[in-house]
């Protein structure tokens, strides 16, 4: 929604560079992770997901890395474009139900 980026840390990158957005998750029992992108005035948009039996998954221009040892998730965006400017959230799924826990988010700002 609007102002979703307020109070969030900001990552500023040059257009064309690669971006790395990091997320520390909280529960070692989490077994499914998702990255979302949220633009101003819109709902979160699914980017990529990964299950705990994997440590890397690639999509179009994006790669997610999972390090279960230190409970760390990262999203790499190759050749960052102005359209990548948004707030990015990680989310983790724990337990038998389907409730996700979302991180607070990071604002990605792409400099032209």
């Amino acid at each position: 929604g609007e102002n979703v980026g307020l109070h969030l840390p900001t990552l500023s990158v040059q257009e064309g560079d690669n971006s790395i957005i990091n997320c520390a998750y909280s529960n070692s029992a989490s077994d499914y992770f998702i990255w979302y992108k949220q633009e101003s005035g819109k709902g979160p948009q699914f980017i990529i997901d990964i299950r705990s039996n994997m440590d890397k998954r690639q999509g179009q221009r994006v790669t997610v890395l999972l390090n279960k040892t230190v409970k760390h998730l990262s999203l790499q965006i190759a050749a960052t474009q102005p359209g990548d400017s948004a707030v990015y959230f990680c989310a983790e799924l724990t337990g038998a139900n389907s409730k996700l826990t979302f991180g607070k988010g990071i604002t990605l700002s792409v400099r032209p």
Partner: protein
Amino acid sequence: DAGITQSPRHKVTETGTPVTLRCHQTENHRYMYWYRQDPGHGLRLIHYSYGVKDTDKGEVSDGYSVSRSKTEDFLLTLESATSSQTSVYFCAISDGRGSPLHFGNGTRLTVT
């Protein structure tokens, strides 16, 4: 937007009045969720549904109720709106555990 329609998109209401927000999906997904998003808090789960007439509470359910009489519709009701319920409300759907949630574009609710 994965076939999700939220209505209304914007609403202003007075303290003490009842408010109902509607989420309609065309994906025939079993799970539906209501989240609120506030600066500094990220996305927080209010209620969710795992089937028709099957609902459960999330982490911030006080002051809210939900109903799901059909697969495609999930209603969120504020019985007596308070200023603390001013927020952006997002509906999400998924077709099962370990599947990503897909979000609508939100309803901005202002309680004066």
